[in-house]
């Protein structure tokens, strides 16, 4: 089975208080030098059958209508090496 990964991130102009909370915690934990953190979502889809253009088009549609809310989020779709 092939794996397709959909990464969803808030658009750059949208305030991400969760990412900010993580970023603020870093120096306290001794991790310095991180100027900004943005928090997103990763979906790993195990695809039954071939990951051809048609399958990718369906996944793209799925990401656009459901996995991401394109009013506030961007997404990327990538195929992972099958093991």
């Amino acid at each position: 089975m092939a794996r397709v990964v959909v990464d969803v991130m808030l658009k750059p102009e949208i305030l991400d208080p969760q990412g900010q909370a993580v970023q603020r915690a870093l120096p306290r934990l001794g991790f310095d030098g991180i100027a900004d953190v943005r928090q997103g979502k990763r979906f790993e889809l195990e695809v039954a059958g071939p990951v051809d253009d048609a399958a990718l088009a369906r996944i793209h549609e799925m990401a656009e209508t459901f996995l991401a809310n394109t009013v506030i989020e961007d997404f990327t779709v990538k195929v992972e090496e099958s093991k």
Partner: protein
Amino acid sequence: MTTRIGVVTFPGTLDDRDSLRAVRIAGAEPVSLWHRDKDLKQVDAVVLAGGFSYGDYLRAGAISRFSPVMETIIDQAKAGMPVLGICNGFQVLTEAHLLPGAMLRNNHLHFICRDQRLRVETDKTAWTADYTAGQEIQIPLKNMDGRYVADERTLDMLEAEGRVAFRYLARGEAADGYGNPNGSLRDIAGITNEAGNVVGLMPHPEHAVEPLVGTGRTDGLGFFTSILKKLVNA
């Protein structure tokens, strides 16, 4: 004939009972609707109640938006049926694109629960006709994902078309309940669609319809009497 107002229950909805009671107190016939039913049982209007439908997994309101009952509600709302989305219901309406923009986690990342002061910005919707534009009301607010966002163009359009229905009151004599509770852009607490039949807001009018509970006031009752009057006169 009695006016029938439906209240949808999704898995995780919390405020359906209060909404049904508010409908009854206003003088209409409350009708329970189940998320798996496509049939709206001949209701004249629908309330999407607050809560955490589907646990707010993925995004608040995102999974409910694709439920069978919403398929029918989306069609009917586009055809003019009045729909009120309260809190989680507002989130569902933005996810369904019946209302523009989106709802995000509160800017301070805390769940917030308080009596909130609002200004009713328009009486030209199906759910606000019993208020006057500019009227100040106080109703409970309780949410985790209450931050309204939209791009600048959409915000300008909403303002220009008079579609910002409710705003959090920024200042006042009393400190209690004033101020923007979640970082919503332009202090927006609720909006309406172009036709005025679909309205969404974060605070909870259904919890302020009896003097004995909630805020001790009945500032929320106007939502339910507004729709009743509209439907009776229709």
